[in-house]
C-alpha cells in the first residue's frame, strides 16, 4: 500500500473534481449538471450527507410501511441518524436542533428527539412492529398508538439510573402505572441493568401488576443487551 495515501485527501480530490467539472460545464448544461451526475453541494462541515442513509435502514422502511407517509417521518429519519452518531455526540446534536423541531412539530417532534438521544428509536419501531403482529391492528389503530406514545412520552417513559435505590425505582414505576396509561416504557442501560433485573424479580413476586391491571415484557435494544426496556401494557 502506498504510504503516502491519505483517504481524506483522496476524497477531497474526488469532490473537488466534481466541483471543477461543474465550473467547466457549458452554460446551457449547468442547471442539468446536478441531475445528470446525481450530485449536490452542501456547506462544508455540515455532515448532513449521511442523513440519507437513515432512510435506507430497515427500521425506517418498516415504520413507513406501518404508518405510511406520516408527517413525523422526517424527524424519525433525523432520530435514526442521531442514533447512528457516536454516543457522546447524540445528546449534543439533539439539543442543537430541538428548537427548530419544536417550532414545526411541537411535542411529538421533541419526543422523537428524546427517544433518539436515549437510543430508543429502533426499539420503539421494533415494539410497534411486534405489537402490530400480536394484535393485528388496522393502520389507523397503529397510528393512534404511535401518535399517543409521542404525545405522552414524558408521562409514559422512565429512565433507571445505576445509583437509584430499588425502593425508589419500584415506587416510581408504581406512580407511572397508577396514571392508567395504555403503555409505560422503563429503560436501563449498562450499569443500571443489574438494578433492572432486581426490579423484574420484585415485580414478579409482588401482586402490584395484577392489582393495577398491567402485564410487562422485556426488549433488548442492542444485540449485546447493554440497553433494555420494560414495556408495561394495560390489560
Amino acid at each position, binding site marked *: 500500500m502506498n504510504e503516502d495515501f491519505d483517504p481524506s485527501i483522496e476524497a477531497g480530490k474526488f*469532490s473537488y473534481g*466534481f*466541483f471543477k467539472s*461543474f*465550473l467547466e460545464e457549458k452554460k446551457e448544461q*449547468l*442547471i442539468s449538471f*446536478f*441531475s445528470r*451526475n*446525481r*450530485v*449536490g*453541494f*452542501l*456547506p*462544508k*462541515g*455540515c455532515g*448532513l*450527507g449521511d*442523513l*440519507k442513509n*437513515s*432512510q*435506507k435502514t430497515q427500521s425506517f422502511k418498516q415504520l413507513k410501511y406501518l404508518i405510511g407517509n406520516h408527517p413525523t*417521518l*422526517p*424527524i424519525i*429519519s*433525523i432520530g435514526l*441518524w442521531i442514533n447512528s452518531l457516536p454516543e457522546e455526540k447524540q445528546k449534543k*446534536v439533539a439539543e442543537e*436542533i430541538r428548537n*427548530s*423541531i419544536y417550532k*414545526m412539530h411541537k411535542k411529538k417532534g421533541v419526543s422523537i428527539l428524546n427517544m433518539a438521544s436515549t437510543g430508543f428509536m429502533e426499539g420503539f419501531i421494533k415494539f410497534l412492529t411486534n405489537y402490530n403482529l400480536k394484535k393485528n391492528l388496522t393502520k389507523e389503530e397503529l397510528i393512534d398508538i404511535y401518535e399517543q406514545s409521542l404525545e405522552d412520552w414524558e408521562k409514559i417513559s422512565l429512565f433507571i439510573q445505576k445509583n437509584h435505590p430499588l425502593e425508589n425505582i419500584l415506587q416510581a414505576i408504581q406512580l407511572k402505572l397508577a396514571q392508567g396509561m395504555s403503555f409505560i416504557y422503563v429503560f436501563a442501560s449498562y450499569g443500571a441493568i443489574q438494578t433492572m433485573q432486581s426490579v423484574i424479580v420484585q415485580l414478579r413476586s409482588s401482586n402490584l401488576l395484577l392489582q393495577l391491571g398491567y402485564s410487562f415484557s422485556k426488549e433488548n435494544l442492542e444485540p449485546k443487551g447493554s440497553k433494555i426496556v420494560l414495556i408495561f401494557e394495560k390489560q
Partner: protein
Amino acid sequence: MPELELIELSTNDIQLALERLGYSIDEQGFVLDLNKKEVMCKYTQERVHIKTAAILPGSLLIINATPLSMAQYFLEYPNDE
C-alpha cells in the same frame, strides 16, 4: 439510478457555484435569484443564507441545509425510486 453524491464545499466555492448559475449574494449574505429576489428555502420557509446554502438536484433546488430540510429533501427525492 446511481447513488446521490453529496459534496461538502467551502462557502467561497458554494458562492462560486451559485454565481455560475446566475445567482448572487446580497450584503447580508442572503442568496438572490436571477431577478434579484431573495431565494426562499422550500422546506424551512426562510431566506437561504450563503453559510447554509445547499445546491441539490431535483429541478435545481437551493435550500438551507439543516437536518430537518435535508430529511424532507431525501423523503421527497428518494434515491431508490
